[in-house]
C-alpha cells in the first residue's frame, strides 16, 4: 500500500530500517516530533515501554507480535500500535496512547485527526464523560425524590394531625349541643331551660369557630386565600373588635381599651375581614389568658417604614420561654400548670398565615406572669377617605328592621324554620318553599321583594330555579345561600344571575347587610311622630362608663371636652337655622348631634333630636316648634350631667 494512503489510514506511523533508524514519519507524527529527521535512531526518539528489552533488530523480530507502547523521550507524545515486518524494514502503525498522555497531562496537544477513524479511545473518553453526566442525573433525581418524599411524609403527618385534632375539637362542642337539646326534651328540665339553651348556644358557637378554623386553615394551606383589598377606616376595625370583645372583658372585670396614635391616617387599603379576624383572635386570647388588669389595642406607625403597627397587650399570665417559639405552629395549645388548654391550636397559626398573606409580620413579646404583647406590622397603603364620611363621633346604626316580603327556599325544613324565624324577627313577611318547583309556583302567585335561595337542592338546584324565576321577573333580587367555600364566589354567582350570596350558616350581620341592599329599613325605636317620653333618662351612666373604659381616661377627657363644645356650638347653629326656617340645616344639625349624644348615653337628648330630625324631614313646622323650644334646656341639663355624671336626678 502506498505510503500516503497509509498515512491517511494510520495518522501515527513511521518506518525504520534494519538498523532501527527512522526512514519515514507520517505528517501527523512529524507535527508532534519537530526536529526529528530521517536517519535518527528510533531509540533516540522513543523509549519502548513495551515490549521491554528491544535494542536490536533481532530483539524486534523476536517480539514482533507484541503490542508496542512507545513514549517519546521529550514526553510530548506516546504511541500504541503494532510493528509489521516489511521486507528488511519495519513499519509501526498506531495511534496516540491516550491513557498515558492523559495521565501525564500531555493530551492537550492532540487533535481528533491524530486518531484513526476506527480508533475507539476518544469514543471511550466520550462514554466516560457521558456516564458521569448520567450519574449526575441520577443523583439529582435521587435528591429531588428525597425532598419530595420528606414533603409527602410531612404532609401526611399534618393531615393525620389535622383530622385527629379537628375530630376531637368538633365532637366536644357538638356533644354539648346534642346533650343540651336532648335534656331540653325532658319535661322535668323546665327549670333548667334557659341554662340548657345557653349551653347549646355556646357549644354551637364553639363548633362554628372550630369549623371556621378548619376551613380557613385548609384554604390557606391550599393557597386558595387571597387578600381582598378595599378602603376601610381604622377606627371601625379596632372599635368593632372592642365592641364584640367587651362583654367578655366585662365579665372578667378587665379594662379593655384602644389607643390610636393621632399621626395614624384614618383610612387604609386592606382586607378588613382578615384584619378583623386577626385582631379578634389576639384580643380574644388576651382576654382568655388575663385574669386581672387590662387588655389594650394600640395602633401607630412604625418609624422609618411607615408600616401600620398594631399591638394587643395584656397583663395576663404570659408565655413561658420554651413555648414562645412554638405558639405560631399549627395545633399548638398553651400549657397552664400541668394541663393543656383546649382548642384547635390553629388560631395563632392562622393569624400568622393571614399576616404573611398581607406581606406583614407578627411577633410576640412575653414573660411568665408579666403579660404578653402581640405585635403585627402591616405594609398597608394609606387611602383617601371616601366622600360622605364626616366625623368619628357617628354612632352605629340602631337595631335593624325591614319591610317587605321575602321567599326563603331550602329543602331542609330546619333551615327553613330557622330562616323564617330570623326574617320575621326582622319585621319581614316570609314565604317558604322546600323545592325549586314550589318556589316558582309561589313567585307566580305573589309579589316578592327578595328571594333567599339555597343552592344545593335535589331535582332542581338553586341555580336552575333562579334562572327560571328571572325569566318570569328579571328585576327580582335573588341571593344565593351557600355552604361552598372558594375564591370569587361573588363572580361565580353573579354570572349565574344572582344578586348576591350569603354563606351558610347565616350570620346576623351578613344577613342584615344583604337585606339592606334590597329592602327598605326602619328603626326599631319609637316612631318620632310622637313626643319624646318625659321620663326618659337624661344620661345613661353605664354607657358613659363603657365609653370611658373603651377609650381610657386620658382620651375620655379629651373627647368629652370636644363633645361638650361641639354640642353647644351645634345647638346654637340649629337654633339659628330654625330662626331662618332652614329646615334642612336644622335636620342635619339634629342628625349629627344625635349621633354623638348617643355615644355619651344622652338618651333624652337623642330622643328629642331624632324627633326634630323626623319633623324637619316631613316639613311639619308646627311639630318642630314645641320640640325645638325645649331642646336648649334639655341640652344644657344634659351637658351638666356629662360634666358631672355622679350627680343624681334625671330631670332638669
Amino acid at each position, binding site marked *: 500500500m502506498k505510503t500516503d494512503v497509509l498515512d491517511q489510514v494510520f495518522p501515527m506511523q513511521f518506518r525504520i530500517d534494519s538498523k532501527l533508524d527512522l526512514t519515514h514519519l507520517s505528517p501527523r507524527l512529524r507535527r508532534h516530533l519537530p526536529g526529528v529527521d530521517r536517519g535518527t535512531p528510533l531509540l533516540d526518539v522513543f523509549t519502548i515501554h513495551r515490549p521491554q528489552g528491544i535494542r536490536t533488530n533481532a530483539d524486534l523480530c523476536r517480539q514482533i507480535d507484541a503490542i508496542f507502547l512507545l513514549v517519546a523521550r521529550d514526553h510530548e507524545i506516546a504511541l500504541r500500535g503494532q510493528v509489521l515486518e516489511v521486507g528488511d524494514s519495519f513499519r509501526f502503525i498506531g495511534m496516540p496512547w491516550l491513557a498515558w498522555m492523559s495521565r501525564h497531562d500531555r493530551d*492537550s496537544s492532540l487533535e481528533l485527526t491524530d486518531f484513526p*477513524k476506527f480508533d475507539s479511545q476518544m469514543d471511550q473518553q466520550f462514554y466516560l464523560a*457521558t456516564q*458521569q453526566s448520567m450519574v449526575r*442525573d441520577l443523583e439529582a433525581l435521587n435528591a429531588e425524590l428525597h425532598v419530595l418524599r420528606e414533603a409527602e411524609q410531612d404532609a401526611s403527618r399534618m393531615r393525620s394531625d389535622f383530622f385527629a385534632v379537628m375530630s376531637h375539637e368538633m365532637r366536644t362542642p357538638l356533644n354539648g349541643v346534642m346533650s343540651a337539646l336532648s335534656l331540653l326534651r325532658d319535661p322535668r328540665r323546665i327549670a333548667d331551660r334557659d341554662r340548657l339553651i345557653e349551653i347549646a348556644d355556646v357549644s354551637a358557637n364553639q363548633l362554628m369557630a372550630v369549623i371556621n378554623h378548619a376551613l380557613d386553615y385548609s384554604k390557606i394551606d391550599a393557597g386558595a386565600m387571597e387578600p381582598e383589598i378595599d378602603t376601610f377606616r381604622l377606627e371601625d376595625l379596632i372599635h368593632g373588635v372592642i365592641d364584640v370583645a367587651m362583654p367578655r372583658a366585662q365579665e372578667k372585670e378587665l379594662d379593655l381599651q384602644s389607643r390610636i396614635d393621632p399621626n395614624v391616617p384614618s383610612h387604609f387599603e386592606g382586607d378588613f375581614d382578615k384584619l378583623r379576624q386577626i385582631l379578634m383572635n389576639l384580643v380574644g386570647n388576651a382576654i382568655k389568658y388575663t385574669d386581672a388588669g387590662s387588655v389594650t389595642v394600640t395602633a401607630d406607625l412604625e418609624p422609618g417604614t411607615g408600616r401600620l403597627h398594631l399591638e394587643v397587650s395584656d397583663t395576663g399570665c404570659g408565655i413561658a420561654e420554651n413555648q414562645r417559639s412554638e405558639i405560631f405552629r399549627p395545633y399548638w395549645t398553651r400549657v397552664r400548670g400541668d394541663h393543656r388548654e383546649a382548642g384547635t391550636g390553629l388560631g395563632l397559626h392562622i393569624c400568622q398565615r393571614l399576616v404573611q398573606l398581607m406581606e406583614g409580620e407578627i411577633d410576640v413579646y412575653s414573660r411568665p406572669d408579666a403579660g404578653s404583647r402581640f405585635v403585627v406590622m402591616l405594609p398597608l397603603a394609606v387611602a383617601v377617605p371616601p366622600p360622605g364620611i364626616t366625623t368619628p363621633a357617628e354612632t352605629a346604626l340602631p337595631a335593624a328592621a325591614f319591610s317587605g316580603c321575602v321567599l326563603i327556599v331550602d329543602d331542609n325544613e330546619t333551615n327553613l324554620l330557622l330562616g323564617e324565624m330570623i326574617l320575621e324577627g326582622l319585621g319581614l313577611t316570609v314565604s317558604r318553599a322546600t323545592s325549586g318547583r314550589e318556589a316558582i309556583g309561589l313567585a307566580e302567585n305573589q309579589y316578592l321583594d327578595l328571594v333567599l335561595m339555597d343552592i344545593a337542592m335535589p331535582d332542581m338546584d338553586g341555580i336552575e330555579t333562579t334562572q327560571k324565576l328571572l325569566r318570569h321577573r328579571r328585576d327580582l333580587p335573588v341571593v344565593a345561600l351557600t355552604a361552598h367555600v372558594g375564591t370569587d364566589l361573588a363572580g361565580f354567582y353573579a354570572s349565574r344571575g344572582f344578586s348576591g350570596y350569603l354563606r351558610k350558616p347565616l350570620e346576623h350581620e351578613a344577613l342584615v347587610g344583604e337585606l339592606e341592599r334590597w329592602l327598605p329599613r326602619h328603626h326599631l325605636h319609637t316612631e318620632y311622630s310622637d313626643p319624646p317620653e318625659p321620663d326618659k333618662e337624661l344620661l345613661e351612666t353605664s354607657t358613659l362608663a363603657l365609653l370611658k373604659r373603651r377609650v381610657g381616661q386620658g382620651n375620655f377627657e379629651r373627647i368629652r371636652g370636644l363633645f361638650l363644645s361641639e354640642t353647644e356650638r351645634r345647638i346654637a347653629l340649629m337654633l339659628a337655622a330654625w330662626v331662618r326656617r332652614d329646615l334642612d340645616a336644622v335636620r342635619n344639625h339634629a342628625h349629627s348631634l344625635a349621633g354623638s349624644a348617643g355615644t355619651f348615653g344622652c338618651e333624652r337628648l337623642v330622643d328629642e333630636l331624632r324627633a326634630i330630625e323626623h319633623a324637619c324631614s316631613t316639613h311639619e313646622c308646627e311639630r318642630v316648634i314645641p320640640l325645638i323650644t325645649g331642646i336648649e334646656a334639655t341640652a344644657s341639663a344634659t351637658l351638666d350631667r356629662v360634666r358631672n355624671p355622679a350627680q343624681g336626678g334625671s330631670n332638669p
Partner: protein
Amino acid sequence: MYGVIHSALKQMVVDRHGTECWQRLSSAAGHGQEAMLTMRPYDDAVTLSLIEATAKVLDLRVEEALRVFGRYWIIDFAPGSYGTLLAHTGHDTFSFLDNLNNLHDRIATAFAEFRPPVFTVERVSPDTMRVNYHSTRQGLTPFVVGLLEGMQDRFDEPMTVTIEAEETGEHGDHTTFLLRRRHED
C-alpha cells in the same frame, strides 16, 4: 434531541437566574425533571417548548434566547462536561470548525439517534473561513450564531461573523457564514 441539551439549558437558567426561575420555566413548558435525562432522546417538540419557555421567562425573543444558549453551550456547558473531547477538536476557531463533523461522527457512535448538523468549511484565506451549516431542523441558525460568537471567547480570537446566505425549507436550514479574524492592534 438528547436530554443533554435540556440539561445544558437548565444549567444556564439556574446559573444565571436561579432554581426558582427554572422551576417556573419548566412548569410553563409542561415538563419536569424527567425531561433532563442526558442519554435519552426526546421529541424535538420538547426541546422547542423548553426554549420557548426560556425565552418567555427571560423576556427575550426565541432567536435571542437561542443565541444566548449557543454561547453558553460552547463557553460554559460543553467544556465542563466534555472538556477533553472539545480540547482535541481544535485549538483555534478554524481548526475546531474543521474537525466539528469528526467530533459529531464520534458522538454519533454513542448516541445512536443523534442527528447533528453538517458543517462544510472552506478556507478562503489564512484569516477567513466560509462555513456552510446544513441542518434537517428549522430555526436553529441563531444557536449556531451564538456558538460561533462564543468560540471567539473560547479561543480568544476576535472575529467578525456575517451571514452570506440563508435558506429554510421543509428539508431544513442551510446558512452560509463568513468568519473573518480581526487583528486588533
